[in-house]
């Protein structure tokens, strides 16, 4: 127990986290590539054609994992923010800002693939469905977070302000989701349902899970690469950077 505690504190310091992150990046990158290859193969070649939607449904293998990741990454950002605000650790803020661009990317990807999917299935690029609308707002929240951090020059203040915003956002996401859902049902009655067919083929589920894991590994790899850049940028004047990292 005590050793694990010591390890946590050890890796909370940028100086010891930097080399560890460097060692982990190739593993997660490789995992992302392999899993994505497997997932795409299962999704595009093995999974059966959908009875109602034909081949068009196959975008699900990108769309659904991207949506999951975009929501999950925001929660992870809120977790790091809470940790950073309560323990005043520097690395937490760096992790939060390292995750934000990937989260925004997945939110955008989810909207884009969703609209590509929506055109042949519903006949419209965009419908004011509760999920679409709240996903769009999540995208705005990511943009707000990135813009706020970019506008503040002092990195410590940027971290803390971003952390507060991420926490305010994570409290608001469920409220926004339910309010939009209610707004939608009031207006349209029977709205377009995005719920999947209840009996989903096992291969479809496997493909989706593989892609989700691939996106997960990609996110970790990207966040680690980005956090390494942030660490270098901020600690440029410190001894350990001059000694070890710049060689």
């Amino acid at each position, binding site marked *: 127990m005590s050793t694990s505690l010591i390890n946590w504190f050890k890796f909370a310091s940028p100086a010891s986290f930097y080399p560890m992150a460097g060692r982990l990046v190739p593993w997660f990158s490789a995992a992302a590539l392999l899993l994505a290859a497997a997932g795409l193969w299962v999704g595009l070649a093995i999974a059966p054609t959908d009875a109602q939607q034909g081949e068009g449904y196959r975008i699900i293998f990108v769309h659904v994992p991207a949506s999951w990741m975009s929501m999950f990454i925001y929660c992870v950002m809120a977790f790091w923010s809470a940790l950073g605000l309560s323990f005043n650790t520097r690395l937490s803020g760096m992790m939060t800002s390292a995750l934000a661009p990937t989260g925004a990317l997945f939110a955008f990807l989810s909207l884009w693939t969703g609209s590509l999917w929506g055109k042949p299935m519903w006949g419209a690029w965009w419908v004011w469905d509760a999920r679409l609308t709240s996903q769009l707002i999540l995208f*705005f929240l990511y943009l707000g977070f990135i813009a*706020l951090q970019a*506008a503040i020059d002092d990195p410590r*203040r940027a971290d803390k*302000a971003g952390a*507060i915003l991420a926490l*305010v956002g994570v409290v608001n996401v469920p409220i926004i989701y339910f309010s939009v859902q209610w*707004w939608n049902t*009031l207006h349209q009655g029977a709205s377009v349902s995005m719920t999947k067919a209840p009996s989903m083929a096992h291969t479809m589920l496997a493909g989706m899970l593989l892609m989700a894991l691939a996106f997960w590994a990609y996110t970790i790899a990207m966040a680690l690469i980005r956090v390494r850049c942030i660490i270098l940028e901020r600690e440029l004047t410190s001894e350990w950077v001059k000694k070890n990292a710049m060689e």
Partner: protein
Amino acid sequence: MNGAFAPFRQAVRRDLLLAARHKTEVITALFFFVIVVNLLPLGIGPDQDLLRKIAPGALWIGALLATLLGLQRLFAPDHQDGTLEQMALSPQPFTLLIAGKIMAHWLVSGLPVVMVAPLLGVQFDLPGRSLAILTLSLLLGTPILSLIGAVGAALTLGVRGSGVLLSLLILPLYIPALIFGAGAVEADLAGLGIEGHFSLLGALLLACIVFAPWVTTVALRVALE
């Protein structure tokens, strides 16, 4: 009551006095609201049925934008002349002082909007009952806008391009208030009850009253560091 809330009343009084000395700012924000709402029919066309339908949304969006205008100056002048720092260092609870400032902001920018709203509603040919519901929903909703907005104003205090940034941060968070506020009128026109909308708006307001001044204080302390 007298002792504990004295800092709150002091802060409200001070900001109201300041607003009274700079009347143009208050009046400008109000006229901004009136003009934005009046531009919509000019852009959409004079079809009465359509205008009646979009009136609640138009007034609510006008109220959101008018609130944003005043928010940029909620903490900035006090930050520039050092008053905010003195407030943070003073023995009075900082949260109460900030709550007072937010209250004053609502009295100066939210309440006039609520009072002008029925007049604008008449321009959109809203029936009397809808007018009353719209005004009530704005009365419940505009404090939410001031409270959430204060968090954004504190986060963007003294930051490059804070005005635009503030809108980007805050407008998405205004969505629930907009939906329930504007939705109440439409629900009534559709023959559905309005209790649900008003209960949720009230719940939002209470949650904001409890949490927003506190979060604003935390954000201000970060900005003052």
